[in-house]
């Protein structure tokens, strides 16, 4: 690796290990009954977890609910938490499992629900693949950017779950391969190949925007 890359990686590693150490201290304090320590953990992770789940589900209200449930689960299982790995790995794993369970539940429901056909792609469970041509007048640059972002979000949401989760963790949350492998409980090699496949699929979906 280049010198720049090495320094950057070193700084990231130092920063992550510092965060992990302080996370563990906060957890210990929470276990000892310090509510303020848990509040600090919530302040650290509420936005990243909400954003992560939002990108997984493409539904803000659901993302907030799942983020809430994630913290409730963390709090409920404080006694069982071990400091073998980073707290961020632990909390992302809980959030991932909850989001996947919810998406699967919705998907099952969708299979028997005819009404889902008429739902908006924005608000529905999983957005429909159909993307009809827009006949509105040419919008300005801001609107173009907003439309592009919606298209990207839709494209991500239509990726198969096994590709979507590692892609979001890597390209949006900027998690390391080792941590993604720990979150998903698969090998690093599997993570790399899934991310590569996810990017190839996404490229084909977003050809018009590239």
């Amino acid at each position: 690796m280049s010198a720049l890359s090495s320094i950057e990686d070193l700084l990231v590693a130092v920063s992550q290990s510092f965060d992990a150490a302080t996370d563990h201290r906060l957890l210990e304090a929470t276990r000892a009954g310090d509510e303020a320590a848990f509040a600090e953990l919530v302040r650290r992770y509420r936005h990243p977890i909400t954003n992560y789940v939002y990108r997984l589900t493409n539904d803000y209200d659901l993302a907030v609910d799942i983020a809430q449930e994630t913290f409730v689960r963390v709090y409920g299982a404080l006694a069982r938490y071990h400091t073998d790995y980073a707290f961020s790995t632990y909390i992302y794993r809980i959030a991932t499992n909850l989001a996947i369970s919810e998406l699967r539940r919705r998907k099952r429901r969708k299979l028997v629900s005819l009404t889902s056909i008429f739902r908006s792609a924005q608000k529905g469970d999983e957005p429909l693949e159909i993307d009809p041509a827009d006949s509105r007048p040419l919008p300005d640059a801001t609107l173009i950017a907003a439309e592009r972002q919606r298209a990207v979000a839709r494209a991500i949401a239509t990726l198969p779950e096994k590709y979507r989760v590692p892609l979001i963790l890597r390209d949006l949350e900027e998690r390391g391969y080792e941590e993604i492998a720990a979150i998903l409980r698969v090998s690093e090699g599997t993570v790399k190949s899934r991310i590569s496949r996810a990017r190839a699929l996404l490229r084909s979906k977003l050809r018009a925007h590239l």
Partner: protein
Amino acid sequence: MKECRRCREAIEVALPKRAFAAHVRAHLSRCASCRAFYAERSALTALLRELPRVEAPKDFELRLRAGLVARPRTPPPRLFDPATVLASLAILSVATALLLHVRWAAGEQTVATRQIEEQRAPILFEDPVALIRTTETRVAKHKRQSVRAKATSRRPEIVAEDFAVKIAPAVETMDEPLVAHALETKLLNKAGEVQIVRIEPVSFGDEAALKIVSAEPRTEQ
């Protein structure tokens, strides 16, 4: 081609960061195809990074607090908590009672076995399943069911290689493998008489024990 593959793998692994090893940069400088791949992947990751990060709502903590009040944390079990001690004692008592019962049952069977030995009576198992559970009865091994047999759902061929009913000393181990297609198999008792015992396979895996359904033997004519 091999170099291109390595270069692309390195690009995929490094992204969304754009710092590459010297050999990757060197390859990129001379390979137009890999440069195009890099440009395409960079554009894709840039597009992903354009997505705005959403934040949790302002009342997130308030709602969370309400949720936690509704479902309070389960405290970690204390080592000498009276409830934990009582529960442990209860489990211990049940385990001891079970152990004593099993030993008593085994003792009863030993007496029965001795009587059989003395009288050289025909084998009579009152409760074959219970005998198996005492682990004193080793009935048979049989080979894995063949794929063909599975496909046709035929009863597997049972090959008893080590046939011994140790609970009943009146029966000796047969030296030769014994093949039985039916649910009955032949045993020799100490008097040299061939006796037939009904058996039933529990599982079709290797080394699976056979369950004796009716171990009441009858002498072959």
